[in-house]
Every structure is written in C-alpha cells, then in structure tokens.
C-alpha cells in the first residue's frame, strides 16, 4: 500500500490520481461554510500549489495591524504572447459581510473546476488575468469572528484618532473619489467614518497603489459586498454621471437577468444615489474615475431578512447566482475588448469564419469518402 509520500513531480500513477482527486475537492475545503482568516489564507496557499499553471499569489499591502493583504491571480499563458488585460475582484472590504469572502473563494473554485472543459473560459484566461482578493479588510474580518458582540463590525481596525475611543474607518468611504463630500461621517465613532483624508487607510491605499501601476490594462473592477441584492454602478455622487452610463446599465441588467435565471432572485441595477443612498470615496467610484471602464459594486443576498447574518445554507445559491452575474459582465468586457462575437441567449447568428466552413466541409468530404457515415 502506498503512503502519501512527498509528491515528487512525475510520481506513480496512483500518486497522480490522488493529486488529481485532491485538485477536484480542494483538500476537502467546504465552500458552503464561512471560514476564518487563517483557513482562507491556508486555502489560498493550497490552491496555488495544486494549480501552478493557473494560479499565483501576491501580497500587495499590509493592513493597519500589519497583516498581509493577499490576492490570487488566475490566468493561463497567452499562446500569442499578447499582453494580458486585467479583471479585478475584491471581497470583504466590510468585515461583517461574510458572504463576500465566501463568494471570492467560490469564484476561484468554479474557475479551477471548469476551465479545462469550458473553451470560452479557457480563452478568457489566456487573454485576461483575474486578480482576486478574498479579504481586503483582514483586520476587520478577523475582529468580526471574535465573538457575538463583534460579529457586526464593519470598518477597519485603525486606532482611534486623538480625543476618540472609537476604532476603524469605513474603507469604502476612504478612496480618492470625491472623498468626504456626501454620504459620509467625520465622526470616528460612525460606521461611515471616512478617515482623515483620501487613502489615509493602508488597506485603501494598497488597492489604489497596486492597481494604479497597471491602470491601462484593467478592463473591469468588481467589488463584492452584502446585503441588498443590488448591482451598483458609478457614481455615488448624485450629480455626477459616468460617460458610459447607458452601457453600464445595460451590462448590469444583463448580469441581473442571468442571476435571476438561477434561483429567481431579483437584483436591482442602478447608481447608489438612485437605489440605495448617495456616498463618496467608494472603491467603485475610484476605479471608474481612474479610467477603468466597467466598475460595479455587487450587493449580494439578502434583502433584510437576515442581512449580514446570511445562513450558511444560502451560501451555495447566493454564490451560484453571483458567479453567473460576474461572469456575464466579465464575458461582455472580454468580448468587447477582443472583438469577439458569440451567440447570446437570444440566439443572434453565430459569426462563422470562412476557415471554419472550409474545415467542416473538408471533414464531411473525408467522412463520406472513407465510409464513416455509411454506418
């Protein structure tokens, strides 16, 4: 009987089989449960080890309390050595929104489990790198796991400003996007406290600095939150409209339609001042203002019945619909940039190339000649 010895590359057939089984089940990681910080970081490490051709990781900053802010990068080698474009996804900017980090993990898992059998996804991974940050607000998320009294923590864990006893900044009000103008509080005890200045918080600054170095390559910025079942487009300021507003709406509505197909859940699409409330300093707004053409906030389940305490038995359906929505937007953005026409769900004609027709007709001729079709 073989033990699971150190896995040397090119080991026995049985070892390969065990590794491929392990790949499929991700070392028994349960995606339908909420996981604390250390388990998520272990999972990231394992995903990278098990899928080296697809996944790498990077630390791009430190939280206030000095923890690594880590992303996993999903992408395949581009056969034509073309420069990759980037899709950004982050989860958990607000500590108590546990379904968000759960979704980032689900998203990675889905891609790992389907890219080898999904030609469209494989092509996207050759053209794009997906940068996924499972938890941005690591300190806050960790704090929300402490006990029942901390479960509803929202902000980061920066120390109180002079004269205050209240910790933390609302990271989604701290970005350099009309900072401090609307929908914020300057009271450090408030849950929407926007900090001492745009990017004053290391978590927000880490995102802006990292993406700032590759802005021209970033096609799409998705930031995942809960709750409310909304797809929010820029901007949070009621008097500012994005130049591609109509396109943002139609792409958002297509995503919401895909999400509804799965479990019948309604996701409302609009700007924050339309369907939620005005706000400033959000990461979504910063991304759009910086020139990233497609930028959305996803507010996942539910609509107030459990709010942030979403039961674990809803993780799977919530993630399935969120995946469909995210992929809908990513596919649109990819196809638009790379000039690809595909049949959509309404069944517009497939753009068949001359080459393909030649190949098909040749194959048909060959089959008839060799008697393959004669049964």
């Amino acid at each position: 009987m073989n033990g699971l010895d150190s896995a040397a590359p090119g080991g026995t057939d049985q070892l390969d089989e065990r590794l491929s089984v392990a790949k499929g089940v991700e070392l028994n990681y349960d995606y339908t449960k909420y996981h604390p910080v250390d388990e998520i970081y272990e999972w990231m490490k394992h995903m990278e080890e098990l899928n080296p051709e697809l996944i790498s990781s990077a630390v791009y900053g430190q939280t206030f309390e000095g923890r690594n802010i880590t992303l996993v990068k999903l992408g395949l080698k581009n056969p034509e050595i073309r420069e990759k474009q980037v899709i950004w996804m982050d989860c958990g900017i607000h500590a108590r929104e546990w379904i968000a980090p759960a979704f980032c993990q689900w998203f990675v898992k889905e891609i790992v489990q389907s890219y080898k059998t999904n030609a469209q996804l494989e092509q996207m991974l050759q053209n794009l790198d997906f940068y996924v940050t499972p938890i941005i607000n690591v300190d806050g998320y960790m704090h929300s796991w402490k006990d029942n009294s901390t479960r509803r923590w929202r902000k980061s864990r920066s120390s109180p400003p002079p004269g205050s006893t209240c910790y933390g900044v609302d990271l989604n009000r701290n970005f350099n996007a009309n900072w401090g103008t609307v929908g914020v509080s300057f009271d450090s005890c408030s849950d929407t406290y926007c900090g001492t200045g745009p990017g004053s918080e290391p978590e927000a600054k880490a995102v802006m600095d990292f993406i700032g170095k590759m802005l021209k390559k970033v096609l799409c910025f998705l930031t995942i939150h809960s709750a409310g079942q909304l797809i929010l487009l820029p901007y949070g300021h009621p008097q500012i409209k994005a130049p591609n507003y109509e396109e943002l709406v139609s792409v958002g509505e297509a995503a919401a339609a895909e999400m509804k197909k799965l479990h019948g859940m309604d996701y409302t699409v609009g700007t924050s001042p339309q369907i939620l409330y005005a706000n400033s300093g959000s990461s979504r707004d910063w991304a759009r203002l910086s020139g990233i053409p497609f930028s959305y906030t996803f507010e996942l389940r539910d609509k107030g019945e459990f709010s942030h305490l979403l039961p674990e038995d809803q993780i799977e359906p919530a993630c399935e619909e969120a995946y469909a929505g995210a992929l809908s937007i990513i596919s649109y953005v990819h196809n638009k940039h790379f000039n690809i026409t595909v049949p959509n769900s309404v069944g517009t004609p497939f753009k068949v190339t001359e080459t393909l027709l030649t190949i098909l007709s040749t194959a048909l001729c060959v089959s008839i000649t060799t008697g393959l079709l004669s049964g």
Partner: protein
Amino acid sequence: METGELNPNHYPAQRAAKVVLHYINSHYGSPFKVFILQKVHSGNTEDVANSGRKYQLEISVKEMLSNSTHKCTAEVLFPRGERQSSPEVQVSCEEFEKLNTTKDDEALYQKLKTSTSMLSAQNLPDSHGRIDPEMKPIRHLGIVASSFIMLQESNENTLYSMAQVGNVTQLATDTDELKFDYFVLLHDMVSQDILRWNLQISWSPQEGVKILQQEKLPHCHECKMPPASD
C-alpha cells in the same frame, strides 16, 4: 425631493414600502406569520401642506411560512414638524382575512403557557446565520415586536430590518397573555448603524403582540449584551 410618480425601484419608494411592511408585521404578524417585501409595483409622492409628505404605493408582500403573496395598496405619511413623530400608515391587502391565527400559533401558546420552565434563548440567529428550528417562531415573534419600533423610528432617511435577537427571556405573568423580555439589534441600511433596543412585550394568538415597555440602549459596537432578565 421628487414629487409625483416615483420609480418603484429607487430608494424613496423602497423606503416608504419598508415602513408599510413594518406596519403589516406589527399588526398581522405572529410566531408563524411573518411578511417580507416582495416588490414595489408603483409609487407616488406629494407634499401635504402643514402635515408632511405622503406616499401612495402599490406593493406585494409575501408571507414567509405559507409562501402566499398578497397585493397591497398603502399610504404612508411622514410628518413634518418640530417634533419628530412616527409615520402614519394605512394599508389594505388582498386575502389577508384568510390568514387567521394558525394552529401552530395556538400550539406554541399552549406549550409556553403550560411549561414549567421559562423559555430563554440567545443569538437568534447565531453568527453563521444558524438557528435551531424550534427557536424560529421565537425569532419571528422578535421580528413582530421589532416592527413596532422600526415603524415608530422610521423616516424618509431610514431603512430598518431586524439583524438579530440578542437574547429573549419569557417572564412570569398571571394574565392570559405570555410575556417576554427581548433584546434586539436593528440595522439601519442608510446610516449602516446597529441600534440596540430592549423590549418587554405581551403576546397571545387572540391579542397579538403588544409593547409594554421599550428602551433604546446606548450605541456601542462592542458592548456585551445586557444580561437576560430573571
């Protein structure tokens, strides 16, 4: 502020509709009857001189346990004035008269009335959203009780829901109604605040829920829950 026809998906109609929901839950809700807002079909708003702002809404609500959907016509008046006072709601829903006190409400009432020990529970649901199936009706009762407060505290810049029952204790009583002490956490989506309330309530299938005492507790993000009453 918009006047006239409202986009039903935008926040003004949605916030007013939530107020209607709080009214419905407080008046018609029970341990086995709890409503959620399913859809806002249409809305209209206008200023009413010397009174405040009136919303007229067509909405649908769903009763969670029976899965029945009901169309409702409602009016909400948010008063203007020096003193902050609660919105006034009028609503009529289709087929509400068919939703009578269920056998389950009666059975729960009898069970708690005749039990030798006083019911006591914490964290409904827990941090992972889990709740013991036997405690679900007690959480629903908490939603009904919270709905009185959420209705009372609502204005055009709030959107309340009950985040959690922190703890609940059954109190001794010599009346027909059962008596409970609830500590509830309410979430306001607009400010993102968590509000803490202590409520003493009575309930019976015949009389519904009544708020006997209410106390808003100080703001605190990391305070421990007040100890359960004896």
